[in-house]
């Protein structure tokens, strides 16, 4: 493994890591794990949001073309998709409300809206579950990195005091290694910040589309309610 340089003067992360104090090392490892988890969330969130959007597109298309809601419900309600669950919640509430002899139209409308709204909120909660982690990383990682840097620079200065020498060659490796902690912090924080802003916008759009669908479905059921009564 001689081609992996462990010299701190070559900007090698391993070299910088091996030079560092244990506090700085802990900071570096923590930030590295945070960066790893951030990117895992970013990627999985990207997959999930795009698949949710695609599913909404397809579901809405099929719903518009479907003639019979009951038949469409049999076909599509079992899908593992937020919009399918919202649809299923609406249909379930409709069936429950219309199974009795006397139908309370106002109460049924209210219950339909509440049931679908609750499902939407639950789906959005599940979807946005990891976003708070991104937000935390985006705001905390620079500070954690800064802590490592401050610690490392303090250590460099105590080194100066101990060796009675303030030459740049004595101080520079310690400061480089300390700054590496901030670098990792920013490396983790910047993607997390961008992804957080982008995905919270994406989640808002998904929520808006689900709400629109739920409103449309609610209108359809409400019309049916008047015809059947």
């Amino acid at each position, binding site marked *: 493994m001689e081609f992996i340089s462990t010299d701190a003067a*070559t900007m*090698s992360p391993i070299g910088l890591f091996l030079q560092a104090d244990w506090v700085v090392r802990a900071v570096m490892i923590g930030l590295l794990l945070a960066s790893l*988890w951030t990117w895992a969330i970013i990627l*999985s969130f990207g997959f999930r949001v795009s698949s949710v959007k695609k599913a909404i597109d397809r579901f809405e298309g099929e719903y518009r073309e479907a003639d019979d809601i009951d038949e469409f419900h049999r076909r599509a309600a079992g899908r593992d998709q937020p919009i399918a669950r919202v649809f299923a919640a609406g249909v379930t509430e409709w069936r429950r409300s219309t199974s009795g002899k006397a139908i309370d139209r106002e109460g049924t409308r209210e219950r339909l809206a509440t049931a679908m709204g609750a499902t939407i909120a639950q789906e959005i909660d599940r979807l946005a579950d990891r976003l708070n982690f991104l937000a935390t990383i985006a705001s905390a990682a620079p500070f954690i990195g800064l802590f490592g840097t401050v610690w490392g620079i303090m250590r460099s200065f105590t080194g100066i005091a101990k060796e009675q020498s303030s030459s*740049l060659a004595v101080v520079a490796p310690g400061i480089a290694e300390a700054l590496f902690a901030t670098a990792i912090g920013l490396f983790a924080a910047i993607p997390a910040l961008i992804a957080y802003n982008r995905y919270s916008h994406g989640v808002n759009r998904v929520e808006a589309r689900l709400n629109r669908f739920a409103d449309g479905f609610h209108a359809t059921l409400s019309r049916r309610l008047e015809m059947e009564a």
Partner: protein
Amino acid sequence: MDRTEGAGLTIALIGHVALFGILSVGFLATPNPLKLKPTPIEVALVDQVALESTSPTPTSEEPAAKLSPVEAPIEPDSAPPEPAPNPQPVAKPQPTPPKPAPAPDAVKPAPKPLPASNSTKPAPKAPTKPAPAQAPSRPSNRPVAPTGRLDGLLNGISDKPAKSTSTTPPAANVGPEVKAALQAEVMRQIRPHWAPPSGADSDKLRTVVQVRLNPDGSLASAPQVVGQSGVTDSNRAQADLARDRAIRAVRLAAPFKLPPQFYEAWKVIKPTLFEDM
């Protein structure tokens, strides 16, 4: 953690390992453009007090001028006409040598200089004229030739200061900066021993002490108060005390450590002592 998160984590892990692997191989390694090795800087340690900064450096002309007491050996006016008579005294002794050879030994010293001096007298006026006579013959200024002393000749042409002459410059050559520096140095050496009296208006008292020093810095005479100013009614009581203490401070400060080459400048010192000097 569901399926998409597992996939994301895997991809993120691969990406991180790849990135840090590339960095570790030295992909971004700069060839250390900043030379971190400090280049040594030459530092000259200069005395805090500029005692020797303006000392006149002994030049090579100095010893030569002392060796040749003849004044004004270079006179461009008189030099050109003299080359003409110059060959004559040189040429005339040449015919004379045949004379002393057959002549007896007793007359030898007398005839030799006499015909030469007599014959040269018409042309130059003084008997010591061989000095200016031979001066033009030298290509450069060598004032040592007239004396005929070879050791002086060597001293005159060498750049090194002569061994015989001391490097102590005359007192007139000590510049005002050196004087000020010496004064400050004297005050600096007295200050630790100076315990001024305290009281009303005691800061106005200025006591001048005069003392003669030996070349080794010790006191050659008892310090005397030669002047006191700033005596007011309120500090009159402390004036005598200030005089005594000033004398004592100078006594305690001796021997003074001062550069010996400027002894002329500090043979007699007159420090002025005041309260917060």
